[in-house]
């Protein structure tokens, strides 16, 4: 195996980190933490996503324009989630049940 066929350190480290995070998130899911379970699961998912985007997709080496478009999808998704959930969180009759007056 020549030197050019060895995986770069940063890739190996990221791969190990990803697998470790996967193990951690599965393990933590079984701990009775209430709502914290969801928060931790999503945080770890975001962390894993960031590693994939930053290292594997080489986002950290890209110019601002690429970063903008990489972020745009998530930003607009955020707008959608925010405004839709604004409705659902303030709607008196969700989940849908009929309530004839109150």
């Amino acid at each position, binding site marked *: 195996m020549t030197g050019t066929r060895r995986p770069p350190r940063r890739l190996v480290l990221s791969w190990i980190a990803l697998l470790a995070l996967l193990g951690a998130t599965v393990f933590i899911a079984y701990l009775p933490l209430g709502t914290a379970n969801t928060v931790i699961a999503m945080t770890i998912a975001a962390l894993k996503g960031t590693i994939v985007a930053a290292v594997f997709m080489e986002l950290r080496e890209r110019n601002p324009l690429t970063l903008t478009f990489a972020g745009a999808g998530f930003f*607009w998704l955020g707008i*959608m989630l925010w405004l839709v959930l604004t*409705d659902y969180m*303030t*709607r008196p009759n969700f989940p849908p049940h009929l309530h004839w007056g109150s």
Partner: protein
Amino acid sequence: MSEARNYLTEDNSIRSWLLTTDHKRVAILYFIAITVFFFIGGAAAALIRLELLTPQGDLVTSDTYNRLFSMHGIIMVWFFLIPSIPSTLGNFIVPLMIGARDLAFPRLNLTSWYLFIAGGLTTLYAIFVGGVDTGWTFYTPFSTIYSNSHVVLAVTGVFIAGFSSILTGLNFIVTIHRLRAPGLTWYRLPLFLWSLYATSVILVLATPVLAITLLLVALDRAFGIGIFDPSRGGDPLLFQHLFWFYSHPAVYIMILPGMGVVSELIACYSRKAIFGYKFVAWSAIAIAGVGFFVWGHHMFVSGQSAFAGLVFSFMSFIVAVPSAIKVFNWTATMHKGWISYDAPMLYALGFIGLFTVGGLSGLFLACLAYDVYVTDTYFVVAHFHYIMVGGMVTAYFGGLHYWWPKITGRLYPEYWARAAAILIFFGFNMTFFPQFILGVLGMPRRYHTYPPEFQIWHVMSSTGASILAVAYALPLFYLGWSLFFGQRASANPWQTTGLEWQTPSPPPTHNFETPPEVKRKPYDFTTKGKARAQNA
């Protein structure tokens, strides 16, 4: 010079046209396709207006009527309005305007045309085998459970066409970012490009949401997955949120390119740089951005929470500000200009008038308590036709005339063109202004029959529609005539600025003999303005 080889004469086999990756030829393919769809959608509109002449539903059955307005909406929105300016004029002009040889992804561009045709044919097939009666909005649970029409087919057609939009948007974004000629900085870009850029951002970020939503509708209908089905715990309002998250920004997909065209026309025929260039440019971006925050104003009476209603109403007022900025700046551009009344300028002036009426009526609809009264009435119908037909279609015709010599190498007959522009303006107002009154009187939309007291306004509207129909057919004849008998056009018949006018009409396949370089701001009329005025 006129005998030089150009993109039209290069190779005229059918095969070369169908396999072309030349953006100019793809644009022509789009022209042909959307013209066909425009007249199909128009035919449906004509039948609707004919039916509404009398209060009783006596021309067609109510099922047929419902299929007619659904077909009119689906065809006009997805197969005419959305692709109209971007895919035809945009496709043709963008690379020329930025001094490039083609778009960044020419094969993707052709693919997007084929997707468009595949989507269009699927939708037409759905119409021929019996039609679809959900309206263009496909509201659940009507579309998923109760409708007895070809919803899945129609939805599939729109789904496919959606990918065509996404590819076009993607192509424009990358092209405008990466293929600009040397020296062509962002603030030297013509405003048409700013508008198309903003449009493309919406195309890329909103269309996928429509795609997934329609997919869910189709799956719900075919397999009963029940995501929007209240009897399975689903919420039909979620469909409306998802649908309008796309479909409200889609209104800006339709109008922004029109605003871009009008910016070009006003500058050219006033012989003056656009007033407040940066404000007009950034207002396009602002519209694209804020446009994503307002969709809930379609749902003020739908059962969404009162608080959400407040948020969406507030944002809707905010999004009107950048549009107002544009209108003020266009008007200010004419101040102390050298204004000539060529046909494209007549269209541009018509656009400003109609768009302003449409925009101001939008304030009534953004205003919560008043919207509760007039939503789902003819007021809404009139409002969006003022924006989309009065605004967008007028701008499309203006742009078509403006760039016609560049595209075909021929000049159109000026007097006919002016006559058509004026006729369209009057026909349009006569058709749609009465509909504002109908709305204020409380006449609901999508009604096959209606109480007799509304008849007089419907008759006026239908009369206007017949004038409008003639006016829209006129360009078909004189533009068609000009293709063969029109006077040959020089490279720059309007003596205007912009890179597209520096190459012969029609342009050679590779657009420019020598790669252009840009050293000046756009709309630099300092020398040409007076010269042309003196000639006149």
